Each structure stands twice: as C-alpha cells, then as structure tokens.
C-alpha cells in the first residue's frame, strides 16, 4: 500500500473525527463549555489575586486563559478516547481493524482530528476572554498558544486512546479526563511559581506541562521570548513521542 493511500486514509479518519462535532454534538459540547465555565468562574473567584506582590500581570483572566486552553485540549483529547471506546463497544472499530491499512494510520487520523477539533474551544475561549478584557497577546503569542495547545490535545488524545484500547469501555472516561486535568492544574496555573504553596511549587517545578503553560502564557502577560519557548517545544516533542509510542503499542496489541 502506497504512502498516498495511507495519507488518504488518515485524512478520512480525521474528517470523520471532525464530523462528530456536528453529528454527535453532545460529545463535543462539554469540551467547549467546561473550559469556558472554568475561565469565567475562576476569574470571578480568584480575579483579585493579581494584587499580590510579584504577580506578573494586572489581569487574572490573561493569566488563566492559557490554562483554559490546556484544559480544553485535555477535554478534547478525552472526548477522542471516549469516542473510540464507543466505536469499540459498538464493534465498528473491530471492523476498521480488518481494513488493509497500517494501524498507526488509524491512530494518526484520530489524534490529528483532536488537534483540529480543539480549535473550536480555543476560538470560543479567545473571543470570550478578549471581550472581557484579557490582554491581546499579539499574533505571535496567540499562534504559539494555539499551536502548543493543539500539540497538547494530540498528546491528550494519545493518552485517552491508550486507555480506550486498554479498557474498551466508555466507563474509562473519568480516567481519561483526570490524567490531563491533574497534569494541567498541578502547574503554576493560578499564580507564578514563587507564589505557590511549597508542595505545589515543588510539583509544578518538575511537571513538564508547566513548560508548555509558560510558553502558551508568555504572550498574554508580556512578550514572546525564545527562552520561554524552547523548553515547551522539547517537552511537547518528548511527550508526543512517549505517549504516541504507548498508544501505537496498545493499538498493535489490540485484538491479537
């Protein structure tokens, strides 16, 4: 089978994932609404934190918006896993496996669809935040946040797909969501590292997702710099390889 056929298959599966937004809206809605609710809710509650000495911005919404981006990526990734689990439960995925294409292509289509689907909540979040006074991050800052968020959605999708292939049931959904939820929020999500409680400071310091958050956040609270960008790039590449490899391995073992 040629590379062109495999690419066409990946494209078809990606399109199918995108079609689910319109045809199974119930699955996409939580991924859009939940991060927006958290963005608005956390800003309403903790909005005065920016008065603390050492806070790098006078807009808490600007500070928390990238967290919502990563949360949206996590929710979208989890939705990908839940959709796959539903396909497995209904037997559709089993039929897909007998199609003469490499299994990695099945995974790529699903994961790439997650990267594109996440643009929907990103758009909603950005519009809401800017309308309510968040700082314009500049084109470079916004593009960086979106690109890194898309990559994180792919990683979250790999994680969720692995769990879906492992448990083969939609009941594993809480596990899919909890993983990325913990990774995203055990960072400098609410306040800069020096203002966190001791234990969270220690956890956030070694949490690789903190690099991603720092890079996605930089445009919203200041200027974009290479020193804040490259650690996230390395982290995302590393996580994509690691989570992608685990997902492919799980896929290869599926049904054998």
């Amino acid at each position, binding site marked *: 089978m040629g590379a062109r056929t495999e690419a066409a298959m990946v494209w078809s599966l990606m399109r199918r994932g995108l079609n689910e937004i319109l045809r199974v809206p119930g699955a996409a809605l*939580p991924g859009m*609404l*939940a991060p927006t*609710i*958290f963005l*608005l*809710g*956390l*800003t*309403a*509650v*903790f*909005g*005065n*934190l920016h*008065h*603390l000495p050492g806070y790098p911005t006078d807009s808490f919404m600007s500070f928390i918006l990238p967290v919502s981006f990563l949360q949206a990526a996590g929710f979208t990734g989890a939705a990908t896993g839940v959709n796959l689990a539903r396909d497995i439960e209904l037997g559709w995925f089993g039929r897909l496996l007998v199609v003469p294409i490499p299994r990695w292509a099945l995974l790529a289509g699903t994961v790439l669809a997650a990267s594109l689907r996440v643009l929907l909540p990103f758009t909603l979040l950005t519009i809401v935040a800017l309308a309510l006074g968040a700082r314009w991050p500049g084109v470079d800052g916004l593009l960086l946040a979106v690109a890194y968020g898309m990559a994180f959605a792919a990683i979250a999708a790999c994680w969720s797909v692995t769990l879906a292939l492992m448990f083969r049931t939609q009941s594993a959904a809480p596990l899919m969501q909890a993983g990325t939820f913990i990774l995203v*929020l*055990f960072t*400098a*999500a*609410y*306040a800069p590292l020096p*203002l*966190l*409680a001791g*234990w*969270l400071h220690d956890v956030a310091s070694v949490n690789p997702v903190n690099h991603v958050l720092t890079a996605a956040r930089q445009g919203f609270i200041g200027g974009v710099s290479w020193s804040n960008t490259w650690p996230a790039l390395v982290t995302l590449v590393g996580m994509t390889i690691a989570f992608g490899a685990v997902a492919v391995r799980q896929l290869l073992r599926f049904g054998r």
Partner: protein
Amino acid sequence: MLAINTGGASRATQLPGFPHVHGFLDFELAGAMMQSTMLAGVSGGIALALDFEMGFIDRLFAAPISRYSIVAGRLAATAVLGLLTGLWFLAIGLIFGAHIEGGVPGALAILALTCAAAGAFGTLGAALAIRAARASVVQGIFPLVFVILFLSTAFFPLGLLLEPAHSIARFNPLSLITDGLRGPVIGGLTAGDVGKALAGIAIVAAVGLVLTALSLRGRARTG
C-alpha cells in the same frame, strides 16, 4: 480541587479584606464540602434516574407503599453520603494542618450541616431524575454545579469576588450554607453561623421538595 485551590491561591490570605485565618486551607474546607455535598446530590439523582431507566422504580411504584417514601429513602442515602464527605474533608483538613476553631462541637455541627445540605441538594437531583428519568440528563448538570459554586462564597470571601459574581453570591443560598459551614472552622461555633447554614439548606430543600413533588405527580399521571 481542594488541593489545587489551596496550593495555587495560598497567598490569597495576604490580600486586604481577607478574613483572618490560620491558612487558606481553613478557608477552602467549607467550599470543598459544599462541592462534595452538591455532587452527592447529583450522584443520588443519577442513581435514581438509572433505577427509572432499568424499570426498577416502576416495580417499586406497584408496591403498596407511599411513592414519597421511595424518594425519601434515596434522599436519606444521599444525606449519609454528605455526612461521610464531611467526615472525609474534616480528616483531610486536620491531617494537612487545618484548625477547627469550633473544636469538637464545631466539627459535629459541620457534620450535621453537610448531612442536611446533601439531603437538600438530593431533592433537586431527585426532582430532575424523576422528571427526566434519564441518567445522562442528570449527569448533564455537572457543569451547572460549578457555575453555582463559582457564583457563591464557596472558594473566596464575598468582598473579594469580582462582579457579577459578587452581586449574585450575595443572594445565592449556597453562600449562606458555605458561610455557615466555614464559621466553625475559622471563627468558632456560633448560633448565627449555624442559623445561616440552616436557612440556606431550608431554601434549597423547600425548592427541591416542591419540584420533587411536582415531578412525582407528573410521573404518576404519565406513568
């Protein structure tokens, strides 16, 4: 959420206008209990809706017992769940260094209030479950739980909330319950705090019971 809020916003106690507390964990405990009792109410609703979906309730309705007792049994279970979550958060709080200013009587009051609050939230979950008879519909109100919580004093003092949350939180009965639960933790056991919590619980329970009764009547008519 308790760990994340406490760790992430721990310096909030330095903000002007923040009430005197030993630590942010003391302040957040009540919010965590509120969140937990609300989720207990929703979970009770989901369980009831599942009973409808499986046809179990139809069979119970055919039994020579009051329909209200079936719902009351479920609510009692939800209330016990609330008591257990209160116990859980008190234990977690004490392990991680929270101070319960009200001492043992304060802790007992908190447990009684979380138990009653869970039962009150259970009435709302039950009303929705009876009306919809579908677990997915009841499950769908999870985001609403967070919206209502954010629009109360569950996580931050009223004076430091931004608008419009500040204005809404003033009239949100959840603020009454939270403040009542928080009182024994940060300031000692007072009749005023307990009264506030009971008033909030009474409002939620009254609304929930009316809705539950209406849903039950509707279900009895339509089957």
